[in-house]
Each structure stands twice: as structure tokens, then as C-alpha cells.
């Protein structure tokens, strides 16, 4: 029997494969670049082995999370926070964005599709039953936008808006309204952009959202104004899994760190001040979720 060249070739391929594989697996075996990470957080282990932080964000929130369709880059306050968080874990910026909507946020956290959700995510006790919140990372007031022609006094309570047609996005703003103004006509659209268009088309009287978004709207279109109000601030946090308290603690520590060293105010002034024209407000107190 002649020596089978095929068999030799197969052996050679097998050997090179084995070598190749061991070469490939080498970097993963390295210890992480960053020191001081908790070793009991499955989320952090996952981020390190995947080499990227997966965050759930919207892509149409000016000032917070806005996707530039041409460059594929995300800008905004919470997009920057996500970058900083990935840097804190990995030693370099590596973020993958997964689009989330109000309907999917809790589910995507629970099933592990995303490591964290940063989507001007209002902290509520109902949501805390499903997921955990790190933060708050934001404290925002309510913004009320109306057509310039609408005559409206300073709003001290949402119930004063009961006779108006209210436009808002699904989510925190809509919940707030259904609770505070029962029976009012609330028109819900998917995105801020749709809401603004609807307001311009006269489909509603006022557009209600968080303060910063309202101001962003003002910068986008003419013929609208902000209705002054004295409504209380709401707390917004970073949504994380309930099963990984070590990660919640880690993100809280991260937030405290960037608030303390001034980074928090710095990115606010880079991302949100150009829209609102106001300096960074007082930072939230991490751990104070703002619930009774």
C-alpha cells in the first residue's frame, strides 16, 4: 500500500488547526487589563469574554442617545455614559448598541440580551419588580411644549392639563400622564420626532416629555414654545439584571466616581448644554431612587 498523501495532508491540517486554536485562545486566557473589578459578577465576566459592553438604547432621543445614520456613531449623554462604563470594565471603549423600545426593555434585561439599558429609563416601583436600577444617572423635570399661539399659564400640577389633547412618547411620560391626568386624551407615538410632527400638524395641544427632550424639540422646530411649570423632578436610572447585584454595585460605584471627579457634569455640558443653554444641574445622589 502506498503512503496516502491525503492522510499526511489531513494530519498536517489537524496539527496546524490545533496550533491555530491554541494561538487564538491565548488572549482570552490573559488576565483583564483593568484592576479592581468584582470577580462575582456574571455580567462583567461576560463583557470581558465578549470584549464589548452590550447596551440597550433608543437611537432617536436628541441629547441622550442619537444615532448618526451616516457615521453609525451614537451621540448624547447616555451614549457617552455607556462608553465610559465599557472603558471602566475593558480598559477601552467597546460598546454595542441594541435598539430597545418601552415594550422590550425589561425583557431584554431579564433574558440577558443586553448588559444594561440606558434609555432615559424612569425608575418606578413596578419596574423594580422585574429588574434593578443603578443610579439614578439623571434627574429631569417635565417639559411641556405647545404651539406659540396656545395661551397657557404656568403649570403647577399635571391635572391642569386635563382638558387638552396631550401628545407624548410611550414610556415614562405616558405613564405619568395616565396616572396624573386620568381621562385626558393622551396620544402616544413611537418617537419624539413623530410627536413633534403631530404637534405641528395640530393633532394635539401640547407635547409632554422630560425637560431636556422638550428643549431639544424647541431647537428643532419653529412656532412652538415651552410652557413653564413647577412639576417635581423624576429619577432616571441604568437598568440592569436583578440576578447580578455585584454589577449593580459596580455601576453605582462607577456613577459615584464620575459624579465626584466632575466627568458627569462635563459630559452633560458637552451633550445637553448646547441644546438647553443651561449649565449642568446638581448631580443625582446615587442610591436615592426617588421612590417613597
Amino acid at each position, binding site marked *: 500500500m502506498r503512503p496516502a498523501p491525503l492522510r499526511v495532508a489531513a494530519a498536517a491540517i489537524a496539527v496546524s488547526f490545533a496550533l491555530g486554536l491554541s494561538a487564538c485562545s491565548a488572549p482570552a486566557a490573559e488576565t483583564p487589563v483593568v484592576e479592581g473589578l468584582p470577580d462575582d459578577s456574571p455580567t462583567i465576566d461576560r463583557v470581558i469574554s465578549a470584549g464589548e459592553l452590550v447596551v440597550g438604547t433608543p437611537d432617536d432621543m436628541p441629547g441622550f442617545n442619537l444615532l448618526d445614520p451616516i457615521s453609525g456613531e451614537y451621540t448624547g449623554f447616555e451614549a457617552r455614559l455607556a462608553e465610559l462604563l465599557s472603558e471602566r470594565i475593558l480598559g477601552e471603549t467597546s460598546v454595542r448598541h441594541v435598539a430597545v423600545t418601552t415594550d422590550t426593555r425589561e425583557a431584554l434585561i431579564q433574558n440577558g440580551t443586553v448588559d444594561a439599558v440606558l434609555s432615559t429609563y424612569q425608575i418606578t416601583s*413596578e419596574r423594580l*419588580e422585574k*429588574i434593578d436600577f443603578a443610579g439614578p444617572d439623571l434627574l429631569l423635570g417635565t417639559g411641556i411644549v405647545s404651539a406659540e399661539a396656545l395661551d397657557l399659564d404656568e403649570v403647577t400640577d399635571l391635572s391642569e392639563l386635563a382638558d387638552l389633547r396631550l401628545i407624548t412618547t410611550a414610556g415614562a411620560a405616558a405613564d405619568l400622564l395616565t396616572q396624573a391626568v386620568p381621562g385626558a386624551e393622551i396620544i*402616544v407615538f413611537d418617537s419624539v420626532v413623530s410627536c413633534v410632527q403631530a404637534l405641528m400638524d395640530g393633532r394635539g395641544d401640547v407635547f409632554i416629555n422630560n425637560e431636556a427632550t422638550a428643549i431639544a424639540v424647541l431647537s428643532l422646530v419653529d412656532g412652538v414654545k415651552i410652557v413653564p411649570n413647577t412639576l417635581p423632578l423624576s429619577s432616571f436610572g441604568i437598568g440592569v439584571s436583578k440576578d447580578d447585584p455585584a454589577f449593580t454595585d459596580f455601576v453605582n460605584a462607577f456613577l459615584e466616581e464620575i459624579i465626584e471627579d466632575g466627568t458627569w457634569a462635563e459630559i452633560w455640558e458637552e451633550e445637553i448644554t448646547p441644546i438647553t443653554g443651561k449649565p449642568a444641574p446638581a448631580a443625582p445622589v446615587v442610591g436615592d431612587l426617588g421612590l417613597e
Partner: protein
Amino acid sequence: MNAVTDNLGFLAQGLLTTVVVAILSFTGALLLGTALGVARVSAVRSLRTIAMLYVAIVRNTPVLLLLIVLVFVLPSIDIVIDLAPALVLGLTLYFASYVCEIVRSGVATVGAGQMEAALSLGLSQWQAVVRVIAPQTFRVIVQPLGTLAMAVTMATSIGAVVGVRELAGTVRLLNGQYANAGLLFGVAALLYIVLALLIARLAKAIENRVQVSS
């Protein structure tokens, strides 16, 4: 569970909107689609072309796009249609193209000999269509129309995107508040299934009624 039990009235309102929108849209689609279907098989060439173009354009466009044009684009030329009527109009225009094709294929299943026989028996063209062709066509198209009625009912859920608070939109709003997607969307799914089964039953009953006993 209280996400559902505390909001039964609210959910019922959403369900009612879904049913009303579905009935109006399907009726509209049936009327417009039948007119188009008749045009599609008529002897007049220009009518055939118009119907063919309508189907080619509308059926090959996503219904969501059509709706966005009605709700967000038309206002830029000063045509503002209220949201719920815009949803009904969008679904009517879209599903009419399907009705048109169902009618056309229904007519095609009736043999050409039927028309010739009717005419040779001395019936006028009109009588032949109304008394011979139409009943046979109707028998064939009841089932596909029933399926289409279900599709229309399910499609009403895109109203949630353009601010119409039908069943899906209601559930979305509640989910924002209660953060209980599994339960809320599960209940919505169940209600949609019940609606679909009711439609299927109705279609079957109509089919049995028009069936020629052999």
C-alpha cells in the same frame, strides 16, 4: 395580574376600537376592492389598466408606509386626517388591493362557458353577471375573504404606531406603567386569537349558507 384586572375598562375600550376599526376597514376594502376587481375583469381596457396599476402600486407597498404617508406626509400639503380615520383609510386602501385580486381570481374560476350559456339562453349581459357569474364567484371567494378579514383585524395593531389607541396601543401604554410585558401582551394575543376564531366561524357559516347542496 392587577395590570389587567385594574384596567378592564381601559382594555375593553382598546378592544372596541380594534373591532370598530377592523369592521370599517374591511367593509371599505370590500367595497373598493370589489369595484377594482370588477374593473380588473371588465371589457374596458382603461379600467383594467387602472385597477392593475392600483394593485401593483398599493399591494407592493408596506401598509405601515402607506399609513405614515397618510398621517405624517399629507399634513405638509395641508391635509390633516384624524388619526383613527387615517388608520381606517390606510387599511381600506391597502386591503382593497387584496380584495381586488381575490375577486379577479374568483371570477376566473367561473368557466367562460357559463357566460356564453347565459347569453345564449337570452339573458342580458347584466342579468348574466348578476344571476349567473356573481353567485358562483361569491361561493368561491367567501373563504379567502374570511382569511383577509382576519388579516385586516390583525393589521389594525399598527395603529399603535400612529397614535391610535386600539388593543395593541392600549397594552403598550399599560406596559409602560406596569412593566409586565408577558402578561399584558399575552392577554392581547389571546384577545386577537379570539377575534380571529370568531371571524373564521362567521366565514364558515356564510360559506355553508351559500353552498349548493350536492
